[in-house]
């Protein structure tokens, strides 16, 4: 049978070209006639498919396909597409001489001579079995990882729920005896005062006050512990409006005082609106508290962009201030820098502020001078980490 030399006629440097094609081991480079019979073979084809040139030349390329594809007419379809469109590319299973299958990337290109006549096809096949196995391994690893993440998240959520239920029931059970203490002591002081000395009444007052204080501690601790676990809903917050409403409420809560609060231009920010509001409530109410008894003391709320999208907000007051040397302790839970009898509080407010700001990816700091005032400022990044 004569085999037309397709690849080597009318091509300059054909000897070099033949060397090139025949030497390639990683790609099967072969040619087919119009009916799909093999007309040339290279070393790569032998390596990948197992057949020698003697085995294949003159025989149909259908041999490379699994039986199911041959029945479906796939090989002929590929030639038709290549003829119509110019090329056909596919990834699929092909069969070696020994019957084993490999995953192939195949490109069939219609070959035209210098006069444009369709004279046959070139076929490039690459064995992708290893790469496919690697891809599947990666996919499997990804799936495994995702599954493990899901399991861990579920476990974490379950343990969070347990903790939540625990803190909820503990705080409820702790409150009940407190109410009893406060209630009965209150009745004693009010309705049975005739039998009691001033000292006794005073001591009863201490008992009731302690109970009330403990109630607040429980509430604040509950809120604080919640903060670490509840999810955040980050949106664009109109800081100006949040602060305006916080200031309004703070002023209304002190009807006997004229409080001077100035609110500057506050840029919108990315934050959980409820939590951000809590931050301002705590900072503003602190400022209101520590300016008590100092007429003319003002409070200023300001905000600015630090340039890279990070925003800085601050609440400054001309209140009693604190010793800056202890500024580091300010944000600890139950930490107070003033005497409890001078300024009431549980020492959790700033710890809550710090926790919220940290969850948003920001930082908080405070500066003060005794007798002059204090400034608490915090930053919020342009993007809140999820």
């Amino acid at each position, binding site marked *: 049978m004569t085999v037309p030399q397709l690849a080597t006629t009318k091509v300059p440097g054909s000897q070099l070209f033949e060397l090139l094609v025949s030497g390639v081991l990683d790609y099967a480079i072969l040619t087919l006639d119009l009916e799909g019979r093999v007309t040339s073979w290279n070393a790569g084809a032998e390596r990948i498919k197992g057949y020698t040139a003697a085995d294949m030349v003159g025989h149909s390329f259908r041999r490379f396909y699994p039986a199911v594809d041959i029945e479906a007419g796939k090989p002929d379809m590929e030639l038709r597409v290549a003829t119509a469109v110019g090329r056909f590319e596919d990834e699929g299973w092909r069969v070696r001489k020994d019957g084993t299958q490999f995953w192939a990337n195949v490109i069939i290109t219609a070959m035209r001579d210098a006069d444009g006549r369709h004279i046959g096809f070139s076929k490039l096949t690459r064995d992708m079995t290893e790469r496919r196995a690697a891809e599947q391994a990666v996919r499997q690893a990804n799936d495994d990882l995702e599954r493990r993440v899901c399991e861990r998240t579920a476990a974490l959520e379950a343990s969070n729920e347990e903790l939540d239920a625990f803190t909820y029931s503990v705080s*409820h059970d702790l409150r009940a005896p*407190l*109410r009893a203490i*406060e*209630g009965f*002591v209150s009745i004693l002081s009010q309705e049975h005062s005739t039998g009691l000395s001033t000292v006794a009444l005073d001591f009863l007052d201490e008992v009731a006050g302690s*109970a009330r204080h403990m109630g607040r501690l429980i509430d604040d601790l509950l809120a604080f512990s919640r903060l670490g676990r509840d999810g955040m809903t980050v949106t664009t917050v109109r800081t100006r409006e949040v602060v305006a409403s916080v200031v309004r409420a703070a002023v209304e809560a002190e009807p006997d005082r004229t409080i001077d609060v100035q609110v500057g231009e506050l840029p919108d920010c990315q934050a959980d609106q409820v939590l951000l509001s809590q931050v301002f409530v705590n900072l503003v109410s602190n400022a209101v508290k520590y300016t008590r008894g100092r007429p003319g003391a003002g409070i200023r709320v300001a905000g600015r962009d630090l340039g890279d999208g990070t925003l800085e907000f601050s609440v400054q007051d001309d209140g009693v201030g604190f010793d800056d040397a202890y500024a580091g302790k300010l944000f600890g839970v139950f930490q107070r820098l003033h005497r409890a009898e001078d300024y009431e509080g549980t020492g959790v407010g700033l710890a809550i502020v710090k926790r919220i700001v940290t969850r948003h990816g920001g930082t908080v700091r405070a500066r003060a001078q005794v007798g002059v005032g204090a400034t608490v400022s915090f930053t919020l990044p342009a993007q809140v980490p999820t």
Partner: protein
Amino acid sequence: MRGRLLLVEDDLRDVKLFLHAAGAFGLEPTDVGVVRDGAEALEVLTDPALRLPDLVLLDLKLPKVDGLEVLAAVRRTPGLRRLPIVMHSSSREERDIAGAYDLGVNAYVVKTVDHHAYTDNVGRILSFWLHANTRVPGQPAVAR
């Protein structure tokens, strides 16, 4: 202020405090029926021999059947559906408050630690429900 109240409360001290505060507003101990858990509450409310109270003060945390379950059961029962129920609990948790409102509670009053505020609230509850509010039709007023 007179009227008939069912107090559903498991803590004896809370019962004492309530009766004391209610007494200051004219409510006699005989006006108040006290049950110590949700199961007992439902028994009393569904007993055909007993007249329905004008108001139920319902605690949240109760043994056997809790407050929300009592509320749900009452709102499901045709003869009891209209019964005025005020939840009286120390819980400020949103899920408890929302849960109670979802089940059709008439009001939710938090039991404060501050006794002064607590007493004020008890007075307000009694004044509103036993005095200002119009009773559910078909239920006779206290026969005294």
